C-alpha cells in the first residue's frame, strides 16, 4: 500500500479509536456539562476519523469504503498509536490522554493545513479549529486536577506514571514518512515532537506533577502490533457489520 495511504490511515485510526473510547463516557460523565463537552469532543474526533477514512479509501482506490475500513479490518491492520486504545480509566487518565493527543493534534493540523496535498490540508484546516478548543479544555483539566485536591493530584500523577510512556509513538518516523515530509505532504515528526515537548513540559512545570524518567516506551501501532485492549474494543465496535455483512444500515 502507498506511503500516503499508510500515513493517512495512521491519522484516521488515531481519531477513530480515540473517538470510540471517548464515546464510552456518553451519559456517565462526572457532571452534566462535562458529559456534554466530552461527547462533543468525541463527536468532533469521530467526524475527523470519518473524513480521514474517506480520504484513505479514496487513495486506496478500490471499492473499500470508509465504513469498510472502520468496521471490517482486523486489529493487525489498524495503525493507531497504542495511547488512544488505552482504557478510559478514571477522569484523570481520560483527560491526560486527551491533553497529550490535543497538543499533538494542534501542531499536526497546523502543519498539515499547509500540506501540498489539497484534501489533507482541507481536513486539517477544519479539524484545527476543533482541536484548538479541545486543547484549551483538557489543559484546564490538567491544572484543575494537578492543583485541585490531594486526591485529584494523586490521580493525575498516577495517570502521568501510566500514560507518559505512550507519547513517543506519536512522533515515530520511517522512510515512508520522511519521503512524504520531503514532498511537503506530511508533517515532520521530529519538529512536532520538539514543539510538543516544550508545550507539555511548560504546563507540567506549573504543577506539582512529575514526569517519570525511566520505563518502557510504547511502539508498534503503525505495524499493527497493538495492546490487548484494541482487539476487544473492535469486537464491540464491529459487531453488527461482522455479524450481518453486506447490509445497509
Amino acid at each position, binding site marked *: 500500500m502507498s506511503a500516503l495511504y499508510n500515513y493517512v490511515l495512521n491519522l484516521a485510526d488515531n481519531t477513530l479509536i480515540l473517538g470510540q473510547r471517548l464515546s464510552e463516557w*456518553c451519559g456517565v460523565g*462526572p457532571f452534566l456539562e462535562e458529559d456534554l463537552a466530552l461527547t462533543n469532543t468525541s463527536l468532533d474526533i*469521530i467526524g475527523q476519523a470519518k473524513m480521514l477514512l474517506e480520504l484513505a479509501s479514496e487513495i486506496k482506490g478500490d471499492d473499500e469504503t470508509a465504513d469498510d475500513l472502520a468496521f471490517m479490518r482486523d486489529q493487525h491492520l489498524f495503525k493507531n498509536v497504542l495511547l488512544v486504545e488505552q482504557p478510559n480509566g478514571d477522569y484523570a487518565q481520560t483527560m491526560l490522554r486527551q491533553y497529550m493527543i490535543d497538543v499533538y493534534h494542534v501542531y499536526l493540523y497546523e502543519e498539515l493545513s499547509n500540506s501540498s496535498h489539497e484534501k489533507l490540508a482541507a481536513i486539517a484546516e477544519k479539524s484545527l479549529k476543533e482541536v484548538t478548543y479541545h486543547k484549551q479544555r483538557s489543559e484546564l483539566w490538567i491544572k484543575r486536577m494537578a492543583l485541585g485536591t490531594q486526591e485529584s493530584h494523586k490521580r493525575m500523577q498516577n495517570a502521568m506514571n501510566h500514560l507518559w510512556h505512550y507519547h513517543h509513538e506519536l512522533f515515530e518516523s520511517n522512510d515512508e514518512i520522511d519521503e512524504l515530509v520531503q514532498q511537503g505532504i506530511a508533517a515532520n515528526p521530529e519538529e512536532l515532537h520538539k514543539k510538543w515537548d516544550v508545550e507539555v513540559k511548560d504546563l507540567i512545570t506549573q504543577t506539582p506533577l512529575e514526569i517519570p524518567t525511566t520505563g518502557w516506551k510504547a511502539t508498534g501501532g503503525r505495524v499493527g502490533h497493538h495492546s490487548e485492549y484494541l482487539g476487544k474494543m473492535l469486537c464491540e*465496535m464491529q459487531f453488527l457489520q461482522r455479524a450481518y455483512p453486506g*447490509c445497509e444500515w
Partner: protein
Amino acid sequence: MYSQGLRDSQAGDDLPELLEAFQKRIDAEEKIEPRDWMPSAYRKTLIRQISQHAHSEIVGQLPEANWVSRAPTLKRKLILLAKIQDEAGHGLYLYSAAETLGESRHKMFEDLLSGKAKYSSIFNYPTLNWADAGAVGWLVDGAAIMNQVALCRTSYGPYSRAMVRICKEESFHQRQGYAIMLKMAKGSSEQKAMAQDALNRTWGPSLMMFGPSDKDSTHSNQSMKWKIKRFSNDDLRQKFIDATVPQAEYLGLTIPDKNLKYNDKTGHYDFSEIIWDELFDVIKGNGPCNQQRMDARNKAYNDGAWVREAAAVYAKKLNNKKEVA
C-alpha cells in the same frame, strides 16, 4: 437555593383575590414569569413536572448510549452521539427552568439518585438490538413530541421557551429514528425481524408515556385549569396512535395490537386497553431496568465526586489568588 422572598403563598396565604387574579392572567394566556406571584401548588406542580422531565432526559441517555459503541456505521455513530448529546442539553435547559422556581439542581439531582423523584418509565426498558435505537427515536421521541409541542404553550414562561427549542431538536430525533427503522424494515430478513422485535417491545411502553388514563390521572384537572397541561393524556395518546399507524404501515411492520382498527365513525384508531398494572409497576420501581438505570446514575455521580471537588477547589484557589493580587 434562592427560595427566600419568592412571591407566592408558601406561608399559607392563598388569598382568594390573588388566586382569582392569577387565574385571570392564565385565562388571558399571559405567561407566568419567575418573579410573578404564583400559588404554591402551581410552583410545586411545575417543579415536580419540569424536574421529572429533566430527569427523563438524563436517564434517557442510558438506553441509547447502550448502542453508541456498536453503531453500525460512522454516520450512525455520529448521529446517535449527537442525539444523545442533545438530550443531555435538554436536561440542562430543563434543570435551569426548574431552578427559576427556586429549586436547586443539586437538590433535584439528589432526589433522582435517592429514587424519590421519578422519570419517564419508558427508560426502564432495555434496548436489545440496533433497531431499538431506531424505535426509541421514532416512537419514544415521537410520543415525547406530542406532549412537548403542547407544552410549548404551557403557562410558565421559562418552561414554555425551553420547550420551543427542545421540540425543534426532538423532531430531528424522531426523523433519525424513523430513518433507522426504514433501513432495517426494508433491509435483510434479519434486519426486518430486528425492526419488528423492537416495535413489539416498544409500542406498549410508548403509549404509557402519555400517563394514566384521564379518569385516573391525579394531577390532570388542576394542571389543565392552570394551563400547565393543554391537552389530556388520552387525547394526546390518541393523536399519537393516529399519526403513527400509517408510519408503521409504510415500514411494512405490524403494530402488536390485534384490536387496532380505524374507526370510520370517530375518525380515529381504536386500540386495546393498555396494561395499566405494568405502568404502575414500572413507576414503582419494578421495571426490567429500573435498578440498572439508577445504579448507573449513582455510579456516575459517585465516581465523579472527586472531579467536581477538584474543580471547585481549583476555582476557589484561583479566586483567592485574584483577591490577593
